[in-house]
């Protein structure tokens, strides 16, 4: 469905009519945000929703935007879309400066914003696709077959001629995504795309997002509280807090950057005395003694009591730890490195849970304070 990516495959990019046709850069990034700031309100009650944020999103990548409520994610997305006008900074879409011609720059951009219907519920699924393809600048008759394929991939074919209002919430969510993709946008912003979806629908949507990026070069900026979705789908994660970007890297790099050098030792011989000894010499992070309490690996051994301790021990300290365990008469059943989850990284960087609220925020993120995610 992507225009640019497929054109590149054909060896004939559609630059004859593209906003960046005259750009000296042969392939400018899909999105380049430079020094964007947005303050809502004035005086003491003013809130700096986005604070001097710069961000570049390469074509064909999937970037996850993470942050607690009020972190400025939605405001940043809306600034990038031109729905909110930033106080300062610039936004370039496929090389075209939005300030020079918003409509032209956004010819290949669409968005699915959380908390909004995004489409017309009194129209059928297919009618929505045709309508939104048209306003995106594409004759719907010319993409009929593509719409069929899109409906098929999102498992909406059977409901194609059903009014959206009669569909379940999960189906409506998929229709929203379908309508966003109906016009062949190359850059799409998805705000909480899996919210309200059941496990199977979420899986279908993730699969389709990966396929669109991989096969058709679609660039996706995805905001979500669901760490699994972000980990599963995104090439790169941008974490926001207090209106600023606090981390921007791949999932793997973020995890390694937050390496806490923690190992977990599991043994039936670990009792309170052993734990006390370990606490005297090491930084013990967690002790789990119940059956099945070691949840990270779902490690449940019914009928076999084992205790797991998580200890910060890297380098020589690891040898000291094993010595200490041997001296205490502990037979180690298993020892392993604790791999930080993306959520751990997030909490380390922001001090907040992904769904937590950082601050009351007004303006477009005002929705956050009413319980909607940003």
């Amino acid at each position, binding site marked *: 469905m992507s225009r640019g990516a497929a054109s590149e495959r054909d060896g004939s990019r559609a630059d004859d009519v593209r906003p960046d046709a005259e750009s000296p850069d042969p392939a400018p990034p899909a999105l380049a945000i430079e020094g964007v700031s947005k303050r809502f309100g004035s005086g003491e009650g003013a809130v700096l929703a986005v604070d001097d944020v710069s961000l570049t999103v390469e074509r064909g990548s999937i970037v996850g935007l993470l942050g607690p409520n009020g972190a400025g994610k939605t405001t940043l997305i809306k600034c990038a879309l031109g729905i909110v006008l930033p106080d300062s900074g610039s936004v370039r879409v496929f090389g075209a400066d939005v300030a020079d011609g918003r409509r*032209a720059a956004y*010819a290949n951009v669409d968005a699915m914003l959380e908390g909004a219907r995004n489409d017309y519920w009194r129209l059928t699924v297919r009618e929505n696709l045709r309508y939104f393809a048209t306003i995106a*600048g594409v004759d719907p008759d010319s993409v009929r077959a593509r719409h069929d394929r899109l409906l098929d991939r999102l498992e909406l074919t059977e409901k194609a001629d059903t009014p959206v209002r009669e569909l379940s919430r999960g189906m409506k969510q998929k229709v929203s995504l379908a309508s966003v993709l109906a016009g062949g946008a190359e850059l799409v912003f998805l705000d909480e795309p899996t919210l309200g979806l059941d496990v199977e629908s979420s899986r279908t949507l993730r699969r389709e997002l990966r396929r669109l990026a991989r096969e058709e070069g679609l660039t996706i900026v995805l905001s979500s509280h669901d760490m699994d979705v972000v980990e599963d789908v995104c090439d790169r994660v941008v974490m926001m807090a207090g209106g600023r970007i606090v981390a921007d890297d791949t999932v793997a790099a973020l995890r390694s950057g937050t390496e806490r050098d923690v190992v977990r030792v599991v043994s039936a011989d670990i009792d309170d005395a052993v734990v006390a000894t370990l606490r005297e010499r090491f930084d013990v992070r967690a002790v789990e003694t119940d059956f099945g309490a070691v949840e990270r690996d779902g490690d449940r051994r019914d009928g076999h009591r084992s205790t797991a301790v998580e200890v910060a021990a890297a380098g020589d300290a690891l040898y000291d730890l094993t010595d200490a365990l041997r001296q205490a008469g502990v037979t180690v059943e298993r020892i392993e490195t604790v791999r930080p989850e993306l959520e751990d990284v997030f909490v380390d960087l922001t001090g907040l849970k992904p769904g937590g609220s950082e601050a009351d925020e007004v303006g477009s993120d005002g929705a956050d304070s009413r319980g909607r995610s940003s």
Partner: protein
Amino acid sequence: MSADGSASPDAATPPISTDSDPADEPRSATYYHLARAVLYREYLIFVRYPANAIGGIVVALFFFGVLFYGGRLLAGQALTDSLSGIVVGYFLWTLSVGAYSSVSSDIGSEVQWGTLERHITTPFGFAPVALLKGVAKVVRTFLTSAVVLAVMLLLTGTRLSLDPLTVIPVAGLAVTSVLGLGFAAGGVTVLYKRIGNWLNLLQFGFVGLVSAPVLDAPWTRFLPLAHGSAMLQRAMVDGVRLWEFGLGDLALLAGVAVAYLLGGYVVFHYATRRARRLGVLGDY
């Protein structure tokens, strides 16, 4: 048509490249396609959900019934003498209310649904879509008001000149000025969400505009509806044909329509821009 004077959609939108089927080559949409899409959507909603239209007709006839029978009880012959004028005025009022409220409330709904935001970032923008929707609303209102007019004529036994070549242009241009007010009200609603319901009260002010004393106070001709209402009275009651009106009258009718429509659009445009500045566009 672009609100910020940017390039036309034809120039802005590249053809989507093929990803599998060569026969599946996307073509750029033009304003023709946009008009077709918007008008077809309005048509679908009209035929698929007729309850709104039927409800509007019933309410309009109910109020006319109260006016007619109540007026006969109170005013007797005086009402009968001016019945033709009342029927024409009521017809124009239902047209105006239908166009105004549908446009202003429609904009409010688009904001609430998040669909206005999506239009903002398209090559066409929301302005031509809103104008086309306005046209569709006027056409729809003509259909429902025609039913109301027919029932009123049957109910009262009044005879009026119903030359469509005269009635439709005159009433259409008269209502166009109200369409402008609808856009302005929609724009204000985008900015100040809760004010929308209060702005609906404006439609009762249309009674004053429809019955404005254009002969005694000529300046009222520059208000929306007033001049068009006077011309419609002459057309439907006195049987004056479109080409029998003076050029000045026709020019003023068209001028007032265009001026208020443009004025309404400018208010809508700046209200939307301010909403984007304040970050309240779509924040319902």
